[in-house]
């Protein structure tokens, strides 16, 4: 009997062993569910970030480069056992309470098993922790690229990076961005984001329960390396840009300089400006609040976003329209008694000789001449009514790129003010307004607003005698054959080239013997026009528009200095100094007008009411 019982037991051993072996075959060989689950649990994909494209100026001087920032991350769940939390606190310079608070926050916001513990750890702290990181299992660094800058300059052109926000994440089609990525928020960083960002790579590796890397997956067979972003070569001349920033220092205003032949922007300044390094990922948190509170609006890019009435700088355009439309011709003279009479209203003019030709009218900035020109245009018999004449006038302006965005590759562009007829219909009633209601448009006041870049573009169009290229700051995108097509297409004004001659003659006279003659530069033939823009909120804005040399224009420029006074006092000298700086050979670095240069650099034209509220740390370092 016992013998049989032994056999039963042996059989049981064999049977159980077989059942287990078969069961093992089933879960190990037949069913690959477990393999998939294992990989899902312990396999991680890590993004390999490309180097963002570098940014150079037109002479290939490096302006913007990359600098790593480190985020201290924790794996969730984290095993705190065996971690010297006190040491972590000490290294991070936080106390235990803060440590626990952050840890709880990390647990709540865990995304793919990891979470940020401390954002943008400083280089110093990074080095300290990295050394001992093996002690702090579950903590690791994620390295991202922040920007840094060779020059304390060009902040508004360059823009800055920021973390992609929720709506950008939701809206994207290609699925490029993940939470926590950086993208360009302003300036060319934003405009050329797709060229600069490059192509991400990826790396697969195993992690343990706490997210610690345990070696690569399939020896890296599936890994993909990242492709760095394209470098950007800007048309900005960093020397000219910095020079302009020095001249505009302690002033509110803007300078835009364009190479007329190409539409390339040589300098684009909005003042007050800030140090671009203060707005990179690491520092922006510290400075953004200060910048917002500053009443002089240093973040605001006046060069492309602020509409200013052009004032008298508009007169050359008015003259061109008058000539083209037949309201005047090159030989037209108007008598100026020092005012233009409009019913009971009187529009004052400046003291100059009575008999005023077209050239003279620009040279001496005669209001009467332009009131007359505008009046006769509005009353031309070819138009049925003022509205039609106005629309015609408006169309000419539109051909200079006014009233709509030019399409500049710097973010935040504004279209300016150029009302259509319905605006005046609403204001005065349909058919119940005539030239008299809108006469101030003729000398650049009233419901007209040009951004500095639009103003500079007019200077470029005049320099080119009838065409312009859409102004742009990109000169070359490395790795791409061309810059965007629209920067390579000529836009023609509705003014025939012949009509430019008398106007240009007048603008030359301005700098020889007219309103801009006081700040003439020897040896450079400049065509310019001053403007003094009435400002209901304070002192007049000083404005100037010019191009040079007249015989072969290489630079067109517009300058606005807010609340400072006459165009000839501030805007014109700044423009002339910059023209000289740009045109003189590299070997010459001294201005021919050192006194003028020093005066511009050193004058503080910020209205007194704002001065105490400015935080100079924003501009420095």
């Amino acid at each position: 009997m016992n013998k049989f019982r032994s056999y039963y037991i042996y059989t049981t051993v064999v049977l159980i062993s077989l059942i287990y072996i078969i069961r093992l075959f089933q879960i190990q060989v037949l069913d690959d569910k477990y393999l998939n689950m294992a990989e899902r649990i312990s396999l991680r994909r890590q993004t390999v970030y490309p180097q963002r494209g570098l940014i150079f100026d037109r002479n290939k001087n490096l302006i913007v480069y990359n600098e790593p920032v480190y985020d201290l991350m924790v794996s969730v769940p984290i095993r705190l056992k065996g971690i010297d939390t006190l040491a972590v606190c000490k290294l991070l310079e936080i106390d235990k309470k803060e440590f626990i608070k952050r840890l709880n926050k990390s647990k709540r916001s865990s995304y793919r098993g990891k979470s940020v513990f401390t954002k943008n750890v400083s280089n110093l702290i990074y080095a300290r922790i990295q050394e001992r990181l093996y002690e702090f299992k579950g903590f690791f660094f994620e390295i991202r690229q922040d920007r840094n800058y060779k020059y304390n300059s060009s902040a508004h052109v360059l823009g800055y990076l920021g973390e992609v926000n929720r709506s950008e994440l939701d809206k994207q089609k290609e699925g490029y961005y993940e939470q926590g990525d950086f993208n360009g928020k302003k300036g060319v960083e934003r405009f050329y984001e797709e060229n600069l960002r490059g192509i991400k790579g990826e790396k697969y590796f195993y992690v343990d329960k706490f997210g610690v890397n345990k070696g690569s997956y399939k020896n890296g067979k599936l890994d993909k390396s990242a492709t760095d972003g394209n470098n950007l070569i800007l048309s900005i001349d960093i020397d000219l840009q910095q020079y302009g920033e020095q001249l505009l220092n302690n002033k509110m205003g803007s300078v835009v300089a364009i190479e007329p032949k190409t539409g390339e922007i040589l300098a684009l300044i909005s003042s007050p400006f800030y140090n671009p390094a203060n707005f990179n990922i690491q520092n922006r948190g510290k400075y953004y609040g200060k910048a917002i509170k500053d009443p002089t609006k240093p973040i605001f890019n006046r060069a492309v976003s602020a509409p200013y009435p052009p004032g008298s700088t508009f007169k050359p355009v008015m003259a061109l329209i008058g000539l083209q439309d037949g309201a005047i011709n090159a030989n037209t003279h108007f008598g100026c008694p020092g005012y233009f009479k409009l019913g009971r209203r009187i529009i004052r003019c400046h003291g100059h000789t009575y008999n005023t030709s077209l050239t003279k009218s620009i040279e001496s900035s005669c209001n009467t001449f332009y009131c007359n020109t505008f009046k006769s245009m509005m009353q031309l018999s070819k138009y049925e009514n003022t509205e039609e004449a106005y629309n015609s006038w408006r169309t000419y302006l539109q051909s200079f790129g006014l009233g709509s965005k030019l399409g500049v590759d710097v973010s935040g562009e504004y279209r300016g003010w150029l009302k259509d007829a319905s605006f005046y219909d609403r204001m005065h009633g349909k058919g119940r307004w005539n030239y008299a209601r809108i006469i101030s448009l003729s000398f650049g006041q009233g419901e007209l607003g040009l951004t500095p870049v639009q103003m500079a573009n007019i200077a470029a169009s005049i320099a080119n005698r009838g065409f312009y290229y859409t102004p742009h700051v990109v000169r070359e995108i490395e790795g791409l054959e061309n810059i965007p097509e629209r920067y390579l297409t000529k836009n023609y004004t509705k003014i025939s080239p012949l009509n430019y001659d008398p106007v240009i003659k007048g603008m030359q006279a301005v700098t020889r013997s007219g309103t801009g003659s006081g700040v003439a530069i020897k040896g450079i033939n400049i065509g310019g026009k001053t403007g003094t823009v009435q400002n209901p909120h304070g002192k007049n804005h000083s404005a100037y528009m010019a191009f040079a040399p007249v015989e072969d224009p290489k630079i067109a420029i517009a300058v606005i200095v807010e609340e400072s006074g006459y165009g000839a006092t501030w805007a014109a000298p700044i423009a002339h100094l910059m023209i000289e700086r740009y045109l003189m050979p590299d070997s010459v670095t001294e201005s021919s007008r050192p006194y003028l240069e020093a005066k511009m650099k050193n004058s503080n034209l910020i209205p007194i009411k704002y001065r105490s509220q400015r935080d100079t740390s924003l501009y420095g370092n």
Partner: protein
Amino acid sequence: METRSRIDIVSLLLYLCIAILGIASVYSATSDQGLYTLLEGRSGKQLMWFGVSIFLGVIIFLLNANFFEVFSWYFYVGLMLLLVAVLFVGAEINGARSWIRIGSFSLQPAEFAKYGTAFAVSALLSSIGFSFSKKGDLIKMAVVILLPMVLIILQGDTGSALVFFSFILVFYREGLTPLILILGLVAILVFVLTLVFGTLYFGVGILLLFLVFFAFTYTNKKFLLPSISIVILAVLFSLSVQFLFNNVLQNHQRKRIEVTLNLIEDNKGAGYNVNQSKIAIGSGGFTGKGFLNGSHTKGDFIPEQETDFIFCTIGEEGGWLASSFTIFLFASFILRLYHLAARAKKKYKRIFIFSLASIIFFHLLINVGMTIGLMPVIGIPLPLVSYGGSSVLAFGIFIFTALRMDATRDEDLISTYE
């Protein structure tokens, strides 16, 4: 008469194979990507205890073959005293007060209690006049088994206590009526059915079964009473199971059973270990991911992966080839030990060796079954493979004692075969 005193080479080789497999697995499970060498850390300790086992094995072979038989009860009593002592002076680790610290080492008397109990059982069952039909002998038998079980349960180590059920196999082999075994199996069946279907459905089911049975046998009145009483007993047992399960078992024990029966899915709580363990083993494929290359093992996803869940490392890194080979090794070892038991001429030796084989079998059944989700999670080691000095040492001397007994079998008089 020429005495042959030779160790059984086959068993010795199987023992060595399993032990080496164990050291390698512990190394893989704890090396932390080669941060430690084989001789450091837990694999080093495992190796040391293996060495100590061999050393003690040599000593055992130097002892007189009859030494053990003479001192059987002393071993038993000594170990029972140790089990009592551990309740008072033991160090508590992981909620179980089952360790005695000696210098820098901790020993787990429960591991040695099986060894001691085997002596007692062998001595008792081979004592002159012992019979399974005597009530007094049955009570003695029960006490010998239940005493260590109770003491170990008091320590909080239910898993180790359950191992003593393997002695039932010994009793069965030696002539205990199979009714107990069958009753045990039926009880497990009712237990499972009750938990899966609930007492109500179980009761309805068994009633239907009875009616079918009655329809075939209603002419024969002598089946009626016993079959009715069986139905009533079964339903009563089912009710008590339900009651015990809901009111007596602790929450985590209840969960473990429910997870094993697939009644609840709980891959984060009670089912976490088993789920991770199945994933690790299942991801090994046919040939495995390679020694030291188990991503799940390296990733530390399985709690207790170098102790109770060591089989995961083997399954993941060696695939089906290694896991089935491991089972093959164990089955061969167990069957070889049964063979040694069968060829023993003395009843005492036969029972002792048989006990060892049955205990190893029970460990294999539960431990491997648990890692592949066929058994509830009961914390007992895979003999010689799981990390643990006490277990390695206890099984080592247990095995060497058995081999020592086998080596001198020719000196023994042929005992009567019942």
